């Protein structure tokens, strides 16, 4: 931190700290004008967005630089914050900055006067949340990491319960807080194991320790538990579909798009950076958990009738895919197959980036719909492409990216992931080689199912006829909302069309984590994405898009030139039945019905079917989660019983409490005296 007052001598880390300070200042300015919505929305949130762009720029530059460290004299005496900016941190900072810039711009147009937290306070919480995520990624000792991790959990908790007058939102927030803290205990214990009784909690010290395989595995399992809880990996996923939809939409976007990525960051940091070596069964475990989450998430997403819950389940799916890729990288890395590990790691990081963009885009899209219509239930929407075309077309970009369709961002990561599966034969264990086709088939199934889910999501909200009359009054999105969505959509397109450039960025991270990268191979073949060898596999999204565009334009022009362009508007074909209404369209429940039937064992279903003699026939189906009944309710029951049993200690009489103190004292004395 030499030359503090001379910006010309600032290193990247100083700039990142400036960003953090800037965000905190913006948040505090929000406190000055607690209820002045115009000031908060039109000045502070755009300022936060501009700072986010600065963060993205600095992070981008830092990825090409050598790691930088700093020590901040904060916190307890003799326990300062250690910070470090290396390529891994830089990549995640880039994701945080680039995504939150779009979300902040959208938020400038989103927050309205209403119930719950006043806008100024919301602004503080929002920017503290952003700053804490940045600091989590920068932290270079366990103390700073845990403080920032907790700040992140708490600030997002307050954002989730922004509308705290609704009981279910308070409940969702409570569940979130609970799981976040159970996970935090896991992370804390993991750091405890990693420091190996040296008492020095800096990451530099942890890197220097040589843990035995047993203690490495303990640390790994604790980290997997803690970060898995944050990422919503099965079976620790239950909070995610409750908490993400409860928050205001820009916050949902940040939580799904960005916060989940800090869990990925933490897992990568611990397993590939802090631990000395990887064991092969870690890879199998992470791969299995990732696949289970991916399949579980997408199947549940397909049957949801609330648009934000659908997206939340889809986040579980995508985090599952990222974890599957990390598992594969672990497996390769344990067997010292470095190029393959780099390929799988690149797939994971690419999916982190593309999921950040498309999920944020989709969540803010639902926010725009929610504001225009006041509806979150898919069954009461429809036909909005005619009333809010900007939102619809920009959301379509996110929908296609989320469905993993070429030439957008989601496809590239799925392509890389499938490529790394194809090259798996060659592992030294024949059992693992046998597993590969099953795993690849599951990934393909998940990708196809996400296409189904996304068609349902977009089709039911934006296409068809409005299912309710008041939808025709839906207002168009404001300018700030369009800017935010446009930025995020641009990110999806850029990630789809420029894989070569993006992978050259990721190269720095994979070099740090698995000692090799795809950068050189990829750079050699120009605009074509060639991860290994041109004869093995190649994908050229730009040529792909140009080919599509050229045949589109040619077909359009030729039809006009050779024939004509006449068009007549008429009523749709009613099949001879003139009383058709908008309610006769397929509903969200209807769209989920084939999935409910095919994947029936996944669900805990309660059906109420009408009988032929009912006066008022009713059909109701409630779909529950097995994990809730198999795992969470029994655990909650056990905790309650235990605490009631321990509660017997509480007698309310001073004499008894004095006895407890006395007994404790005697016990301690015995221990000390030996």
């Amino acid at each position: 931190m030499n030359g503090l007052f001379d910006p010309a001598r600032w290193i990247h880390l100083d700039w990142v700290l400036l960003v953090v300070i800037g965000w905190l200042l913006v948040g505090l300015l929000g406190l000055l004008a607690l209820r002045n919505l115009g000031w908060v929305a039109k000045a502070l949130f755009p300022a936060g967005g501009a700072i986010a762009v600065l963060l993205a720029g600095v992070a981008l530059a830092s990825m090409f630089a050598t790691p930088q460290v700093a020590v901040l004299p904060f916190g307890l005496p003799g326990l300062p914050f250690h910070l470090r900016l290396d390529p891994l941190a830089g990549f995640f900072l880039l994701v945080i900055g680039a995504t939150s810039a779009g979300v902040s711009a959208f938020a400038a147009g989103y927050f309205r006067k209403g119930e719950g937290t006043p806008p100024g306070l919301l602004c503080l919480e929002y920017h503290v949340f952003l700053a804490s995520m940045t600091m989590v990624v920068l932290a270079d000792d366990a103390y700073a990491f845990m403080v920032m991790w907790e700040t992140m959990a708490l600030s997002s908790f307050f954002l989730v319960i922004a509308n705290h007058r609704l009981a279910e939102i308070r409940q969702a927030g409570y569940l979130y807080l609970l799981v976040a803290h159970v996970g935090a205990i896991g992370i804390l214990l993991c750091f405890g194991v990693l420091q190996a009784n040296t008492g020095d909690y800096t990451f530099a010290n942890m890197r220097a320790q040589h843990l035995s395989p047993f203690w490495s595995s303990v640390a790994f399992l604790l980290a997997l538990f803690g970060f898995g809880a944050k990422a919503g990996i099965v079976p620790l996923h239950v909070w995610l579909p409750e908490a993400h939809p409860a928050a205001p939409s820009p916050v949902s976007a940040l939580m799904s798009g960005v916060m989940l990525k800090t869990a990925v960051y933490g897992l990568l940091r611990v397993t590939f950076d802090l631990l000395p070596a990887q064991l092969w069964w870690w890879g199998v475990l992470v791969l299995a958990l990732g696949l289970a989450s991916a399949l579980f998430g997408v199947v549940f997403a397909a049957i949801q009738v609330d648009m934000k819950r659908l997206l939340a389940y889809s986040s579980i799916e995508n985090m599952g895919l990222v974890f599957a890729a990390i598992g594969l990288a672990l497996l390769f890395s344990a067997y010292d197959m470095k190029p393959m590990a780099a390929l799988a790691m690149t797939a994971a990081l690419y999916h982190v980036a593309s999921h950040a963009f498309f999920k944020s885009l989709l969540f803010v899209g639902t926010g725009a719909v929610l504001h225009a219509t006041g509806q979150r239930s898919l069954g009461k929407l429809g036909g909005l492409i005619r009333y809010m075309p900007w939102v619809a077309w920009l959301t379509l970009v996110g929908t296609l990216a989320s469905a993993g369709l070429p030439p957008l961002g989601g496809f590239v990561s799925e392509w890389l992931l499938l490529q790394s599966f194809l090259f798996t034969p060659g592992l030294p264990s024949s059992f693992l080689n046998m597993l590969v086709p099953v795993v690849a088939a599951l990934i393909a199934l998940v990708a196809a199912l996400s296409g189904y889910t996304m068609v349902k999501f977009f089709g039911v909200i934006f296409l068809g006829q409005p299912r309710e009359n008041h939808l025709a009054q839906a207002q168009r999105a404001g300018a700030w909302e369009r800017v935010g969505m446009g930025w995020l959509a641009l990110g999806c397109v850029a990630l789809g069309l420029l894989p070569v450039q993006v992978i050259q960025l990721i190269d720095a991270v994979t070099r740090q984590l698995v000692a090799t990268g795809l950068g050189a191979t990829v750079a050699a073949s120009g605009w074509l994405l060639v991860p290994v060898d041109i004869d093995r596999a190649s994908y050229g999204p730009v040529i792909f898009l140009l080919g599509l565009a050229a045949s589109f334009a040619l077909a359009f022009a030729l039809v006009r030139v050779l024939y004509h362009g006449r068009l007549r508007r008429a009523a749709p074909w009613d099949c001879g039945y003139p009383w058709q209404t908008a309610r006769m369209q397929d509903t969200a429940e209807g769209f989920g019905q084939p999935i409910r039937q095919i994947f029936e064992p996944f669900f805990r279903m309660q059906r109420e079917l009408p009988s032929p003699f009912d006066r008022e026939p009713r059909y109701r189906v409630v779909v529950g989660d097995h994990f809730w009944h198999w795992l969470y309710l029994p655990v909650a029951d056990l905790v309650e019983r235990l605490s009631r049993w321990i509660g017997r200690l509480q007698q309310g009489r001073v004499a008894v409490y004095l006895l407890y103190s006395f007994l404790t004292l005697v016990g301690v004395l015995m221990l000390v005296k030996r």
Partner: protein
Amino acid sequence: MSVLGSLSQLLEIVVALLLAPLLVGWINQWRAWLQNKSGPGLLQPYRLLHKLFNKESVVAEQASPLFRAAPYIVFSCMVLASAIIPTLSTDLPLAPAADAIALVGLFALARVFMSLAAMDVGTAFGTMGARREMLIGFLAEPALLMVLFSASLIPKSTSLATIVETLAHRELAIYPSLAFAGVAFVMISLAENARVPVDNPATHLELTMIHEALILEYSGRHLALLEWAASLKLFAYSCLGVALFLPWGVAEAHAPLELVLAVPVLLLKLAIGGVLLALMETASAKMRIFRVPEFLGTAFLLAVIGVLVHILLGA
């Protein structure tokens, strides 16, 4: 990019565009003959396209621009698909842009736009068709991917050109994995192209149609493009099957004579394939929609077994 390469690329696209309706006409003619009918004639699909292009397009009042753009998008997807499948030659300048996985993605892109367009007008048939199409899609897509994987494990490449080159110009060896994959591929093609056990291309009975429900609202040039795209899809799938399972006769790079020979060889193979398809369609009956997941699940399993067999036997 060689001159010959560009030439064969152009030839492929033109051949696909021109011959795709003929293949449909050929199959329909044979189906009619097998059912003791006289048949509409081989050129009927061309007459239909010409008629539809001449008619004015009637579009529902509430249809959005997506509805009008979708036929062009679906059509371009199918043109691109037939451009990258190595049917006549493996020396294609466009082929490196999309490998086997991207080809599956391309078909998925077309399907998604088709379904979205069907939902756009908001009639009961359109949305029902979209739901069923996506149901078949999410079952068939991974199965197709696994079929392509079991083929791509042989040359250790997902590039279609490399796969076909390896399969076509090798010493005659029998790959058991390809036998499983071949059966799976036939089942998937039937489902994806709306053929008989899954869907009936000749039906307009409301409750059973899938593909016809999707395009129910289309007319005029839009319908013509969609019909043409459907025949291109059938053509592309047939060519893919031919390229993977009977690849002999596909031209290599720098072999103009082979390229000239490749066209009649392809025609012969497609003609036989068309007769077989008509025979299969005549001999079987359409199944209930909820039997379709079982049908496609079998195809999926067969394809996975194909990959497993390859890894187990190393061949």
